[in-house]
C-alpha cells in the first residue's frame, strides 16, 4: 500500500511536468525516482520502514522534513 502522504501532481511551485509525478505532501516537494519506489512500496521497499520522512512524521505526529536528500551519490 502506498504512503498516505504520496500524491501525483503535474505542477508545484515553479516546477511543471507533462506526466503526473510523485509528490510528497509532507515535504512539499517532488520526490526522487528512487524514493518514489519507497513511497509506492515497490520491490519490497516500504514507506513505513525505509522513509525517514514518514518515520519522522510517525515519531512527532507530523511535520517531518525532507531536507536530507540522498547523500550517497548517484546510482551507477
Amino acid at each position, binding site marked *: 500500500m502506498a504512503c498516505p502522504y504520496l500524491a501525483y501532481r503535474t505542477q508545484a511551485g515553479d516546477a511543471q511536468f507533462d506526466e*503526473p*509525478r510523485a509528490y510528497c505532501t509532507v515535504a512539499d516537494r517532488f520526490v526522487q*525516482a528512487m*524514493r*518514489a519506489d519507497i513511497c509506492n512500496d515497490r520491490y519490497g521497499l516500504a514507506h513505513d520502514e*525505509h522513509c525517514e520522512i514518514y518515520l519522522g512524521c510517525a515519531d512527532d505526529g507530523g511535520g517531518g522534513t525532507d531536507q536530507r536528500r*540522498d547523500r550517497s551519490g548517484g*546510482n551507477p
Partner: protein
Amino acid sequence: MSYEAFLADEPVIVTAALTGGVHGKEANPNLPETPEEIGQAAAAVEDAGASVVHLHARRPNGERSFETDRFQEIDDAVRRHADDVIVQHSTGGTGAPADVRHLPLRTDPPPEMASLDMGPLNRYDHLTSENSRALIDSLHAEMVDRGIKPELEVFNDGHLNELYGLCERRDLADPVYATLIFGPGTLSRPRPRNLLNAIDSLPDDAAFNTIGFGRHQLPFATMGILFGGHVRVGLEDNVYYRRGELAESNAQLVERVVRVARELGREVASPSQARDLLGLRE
C-alpha cells in the same frame, strides 16, 4: 594503467551518464528521461566526444524501470539518433530484487557493456543497496554468457577488496575495467590522495575510469585524465555546470571535459578506439 598511459598519449574514454536512477527532472529539468530524450542526448554527447553512454531506464513519469522492454526502447532510440556510441546498461538498483537486476542485460542485441556494483552502499537513512557477492557473481555470469563487458563500480576502498575477490572467484577478461567513485556517504572521500591510493591498489594492467559526484565531477575527471585513466561525466552524477548554475545538458558537461583533456594533451577516444582499449572486440 597509470601515469604511463598519460605519457604514452593513450586516448581518454569519456563516458556520459545521461539519466541515472536516483534524481530526475525534479533536480534538473534538462535531464533526459524518455527514450526519445535519451536517444537525442546520446547523439549530442557522441558529437561532443563521448564514446560510451551509461543508461538507466525510467517509466514515463520519471520513476525507475528495470524492464528489458524499456531498456530496449532506449537502445533503439540511441541507435536511431547516435552513430556508433557504445551502450552501457546499469545493473544497479537499490531495493530491487536479484531477478529484476538481471533484466537490463536481456535486450537484443545485448549492451556492449554493463555496470557491476562491487558491494553495499547506504541510501537515505534506512536503506542499503546490498549488492551481495552472490548477486555480483550471477550478474557477471550472465554478462559473460551474453558477451557483455563488465564495468566494475568501486564505491569505496572496501570494494577494491571485493574486486580482487571477484577476480579470484571468476575469470575476468582483460583488461579489468574499474570505475573509481568519489563523493559523499558510503563513497570514498573525495580527496586527491584517495584517488591515487585507489589507482595504486588496482590489479596490474587494470584500466580505470573516474567519477566524482556533484561538485567533485570536474576535479576528479581532470585528475583521472592526468593520471592516465578514463572519465565519466553527466547529469546522473552532477546536475550543475558550476556552483548555483544548473547544467544545460549532458553535452555541455562532456564538451567541458573534452576541452580539459585536449588542453592537458590527451585526445579523446572514438568509439572504435574505446572498443580496442576495453577489449570489446574479440
